[in-house]
């Protein structure tokens, strides 16, 4: 029965997904709000059953599925992201005449895949979750079938994603061949014989595949296109959730490896170079963009760079705190884009944002707070997150990384504040057709605002949770 308890979160998600898909086939019965309600209920049930697992170190299927506190913490993040994406989608799907049952169903399946990815220490199960997520994600990004950009996004995501998946599976094969196991603890054992070169190649392949999911430079290039083309609620979900899963898996592989594995200096060297490149490229490329979704895409790449610093300096707590923050900042920013959209069309070009802050002060104000948080201004959560990451980096002796991080954060202030300036300082050129009857989106916006401020002002409780989570790693 223990196994069933561990399976419950996944069962609720999959069951909800099937139910919503079937509801979507009905001609009249499956209205939008019913499907959304079913999805939210499934997510809530999954969250509840996951919460019951906290502190019980539940294993199932011979230890293949293991819900330790770190996995549960991530599960909550994914479920929150999925729930917010459901809320964001409700009105958006109608406005853009997109298939609804598929949206909710695939979203739940994607969340399910991410949960599987994090709730194991066996890399084969990780791959299973990765593929469950990826296949759903390819379809999600192409969901707006009448939009060429959406189709382009899906095609690019699928092709490059398959490429990365192939890397991972090849790497797994090499690892299994040399080590005889795919348990992360077995992988990290010091060399006892056999070919270390093959094992290291396998490790490099797996890490590269994960770097693709996290969108680290130079594995990042699909991301701006996918963010731009994918429906905005989908982009909101992609902004934080898959990164979080990728980072946790990276952590699970590297934490034992840094203790007992070999060639650790080389790995740290490479990851440092990647972090620097990611921070610099992400932030500088964002400077030139005029499309808001592309700006947010590059900004999410840059944030991945900061988070990688936490991995390098061996600071899981800082990483989880940053991820929790970024979840709300990222989803909230895309929510603001959705809130400012009109029927059938979204405002994406920066110039079109002129004056919307004054016309819609609530949306503009919350968007501003979220952007300030991304830029790392106190008293928001973004500030504390960066502060923790950079200070532990300095303490761990990665002074250079921290300096690059601070400098590129300064660069990022420019493009974040440019959005604020355009929203509040410039006169609108014409009246915008904004659909303001969108209560679900406002709910998400206020939730994100609250979360960012709570994390910035009173982070005590969440840090206690994170301490418990990292202790289980």
């Amino acid at each position: 029965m223990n196994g069933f308890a561990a399976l419950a979160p996944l069962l609720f998600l999959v069951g909800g997904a099937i139910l919503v898909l079937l509801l979507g086939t009905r001609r009249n019965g499956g209205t939008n709000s019913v499907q959304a309600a079913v999805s939210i209920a499934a997510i809530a049930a999954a969250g509840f059953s996951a919460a019951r697992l906290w502190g019980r170190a539940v294993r199932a299927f011979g230890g293949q599925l293991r819900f330790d506190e770190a996995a549960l913490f991530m599960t909550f993040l994914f479920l929150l992201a999925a729930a917010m994406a459901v809320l964001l989608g409700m009105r958006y799907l109608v406005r853009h005449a997109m298939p609804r049952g598929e949206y909710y169903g695939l979203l739940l399946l994607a969340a399910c895949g991410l949960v599987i990815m994090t709730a194991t220490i066996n890399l084969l199960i990780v791959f299973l979750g990765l593929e469950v997520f990826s296949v759903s994600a390819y379809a999600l990004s192409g969901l707006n079938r009448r939009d060429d950009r959406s189709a382009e996004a899906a095609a690019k995501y699928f092709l490059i994603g398959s490429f990365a998946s192939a890397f991972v599976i090849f790497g797994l094969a090499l690892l299994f061949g040399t080590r005889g196991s795919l348990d992360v603890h077995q992988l990290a054992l010091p060399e006892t014989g056999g070919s270390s070169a093959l094992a290291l190649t396998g490790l490099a392949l797996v890490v590269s595949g994960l770097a693709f999911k996290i969108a680290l430079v130079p594995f990042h290039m699909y991301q701006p296109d996918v963010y731009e083309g994918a429906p905005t609620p989908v982009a909101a979900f992609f902004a934080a959730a898959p990164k979080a899963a990728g980072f946790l898996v990276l952590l699970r592989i590297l934490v034992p490896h840094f203790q007992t594995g070999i060639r650790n200096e080389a790995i740290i060297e490479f990851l440092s170079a990647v972090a620097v490149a990611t921070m610099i490229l992400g932030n500088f490329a964002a400077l030139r963009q005029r499309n808001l979704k592309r700006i947010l895409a590059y900004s999410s790449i840059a944030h991945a760079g900061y988070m990688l610093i936490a991995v390098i300096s061996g600071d899981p707590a800082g990483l989880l705190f940053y991820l929790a923050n970024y979840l709300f900042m990222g989803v909230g920013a895309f929510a603001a884009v959705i809130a400012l959209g009109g029927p059938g069309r979204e405002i994406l070009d920066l110039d079109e944002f002129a004056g919307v802050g004054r016309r819609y002060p609530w949306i503009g104000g919350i968007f501003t707070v979220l952007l300030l948080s991304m830029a790392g201004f106190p008293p928001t959560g973004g500030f504390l997150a960066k502060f923790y990451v950079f200070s532990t980096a300095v303490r761990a002796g990665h002074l250079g990384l921290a300096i690059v991080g601070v400098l590129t954060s300064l660069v990022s202030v420019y493009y974040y504040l440019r959005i604020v300036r355009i929203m509040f300082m410039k006169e609108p050129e014409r009246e915008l057709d904004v659909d303001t009857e969108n209560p679900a989106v406002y709910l998400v916006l206020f939730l994100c605002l609250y979360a960012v401020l709570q994390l910035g002002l009173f982070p005590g409780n969440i840090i206690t949770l994170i301490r418990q989570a990292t202790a289980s790693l």
Partner: protein
Amino acid sequence: MPVFVFIPLAPVLGALVLFLFGRRLPRRTISALACSTIAAAFVFSVAAFINLLSTAASGQNILTYKLFTWISAGAFRADAAFRFDPLAAVMVLVVTGVGLLIHVYSVGYMSRERDYGRYFACLNLFTFAMLLLVLADNLVFMFVGWEGVGLCSYLLIGYWFEKPSAADAGKKAFLVNRIGDAGFLLGILFLWTAAGTTSFFSLEIAVAGSVIAPSLATLSAVLLFIGAAGKSAQIPLYIWLPDAMEGPTPVSALIHAATMVTAGVYMVARLNPLYSFSPAAGQIVAFVGALTAVYAGTIALVQNDIKRVLAYSTISQLGYMFLGCGVGAYAAGVFHLFTHAFFKSLLFLAAGSVIHALSGEQDLRRMGGLKKYLPRTYPVFLVGALVIAGVPFLSGFFSKDAILVSAFARGQWFVGILGLAGAVLTAFYMFRLIFLAFFGNERFPAEVKSHIHESPAVMTRPLAVLAFLSIVAGFTGLPAVLGKRANLFSRFLEPVVRPAAEGNLSLGAEWTLILASAACAAVGIWLAYLFYVRNTALPGRWAARLPRIYRLLGRGYYVDEIYGAIVVNPLVRGADAVYRRFDLGIIDAAVDGTGRAAGYFGKAAGLVQTGWIKDYALAVLFGLVIFLGVLLF
């Protein structure tokens, strides 16, 4: 949770509701909500006061309650914590009690205003901030309330923001207060470096144990006093208060007479161990207070705007309070604060009633003979004037006398004599106002006359209550010579305010002083009678004979102009030069250059982003090969 924690709660809830929904609620609801929240705060205050009396009997007279740790950075620590002790109890009762009366009065006074909800929202928010200020357990938390009352003062002075003079006055008050706040903040910082704490309790211990270096203590005490001088309108930062009269009259009564401007006095009294520890700082406080008392009194002599007379009078009375605190008679200073809150808000509200009756006329030269038109306002105004003038056995007499007695008892003859001189001035300008407004010829135009009406009961009833309080409040602190129930007030404050060192004034000397100050009041009133009733040509003749002095006083010693010439203009011009030369020439150029370079870099980064899948795949492969190379070789 102890009951005093709930005192600030009701006003902040009221303010929240009114800020959010004030525009949509009907006026009756707004008035009811605003008044009932303050009434609730008052009830809580009374309950907390009674509770304090009962716990004081068992020796526990300082209650604290910590809400949460607010800031904790390294060794620096500040809690959001409340402290309820006799001093805070007095302040809380004054703030909520007088505040309640003024809220009720405002219902009548503001009834014709368009933006009714905003007014009461600000007033409620102000009450909340003021309660935070007086209940705070440490300087940092107190600073929150300190800034809050400053903000509300700014909002309410500029309540009629369509009027440029009101908007300017609000800005002036805010900017001048900033200077004071800078001093206040620096003072907190120095105090923290010296004592390692900002909580009043630990500060008292640190001072008692002489942990603080005397020089640092003096420095921080003086800096804190700069903050107090800004908030409480003392030389040289008093210039904002006369202009603040642009706000609605009830605001002048509540914020610029009874409560906010006394925050500085309260703070000095609260930090009395520090000021007693540093005699130099105390001496500065006493001198500035005494000088301000006389100086503002002389300006008040010739003002023609009824509210400006009262504003300068407030500055002068605040000077008395600082005088008391400066010579070490903190209880006397707070006692004067206590009585002043009643009679000065009474005077302001009565003046408001006069202005209301005359359809907004504030100039004394266009009043006169109002006695018969305002049968309910006149007596209370007269009571207020008698009290502030220091007529014996009224509260103003006792509190002022307590200060002067302490000054002479400590051998501070100079400030004591200044105080006596100020008493003559006070009686004179106050009765000049009475005679000009209520006696003599009717100098207002005919069409105003047709509109004259006594104010509604909602306005006059609070006046009656305040008049009653102004008369009797003094009996809580009778001088020592008047029997055994004397000095109730200072004995109540004893746990917080260390009892003044025994004065070496003999019984006879004290009686002499009491008689002297009564004589001062009499002289002032007699002079005013001489000038403005017996021989009304006299003021004009004096003004003609001494035109320079008359103009000098009328313009408030040209202080605004002097500040403009030596501080404001050079600053503006300097800032402009810095902006042109440095900002545009160097900083902006550098920033633009960096920005442009960053932009080019971004463009280069964009070039790699071709949009072709084969390039994306190539990049992935590139990354992998590098990783492999680094790992394997």
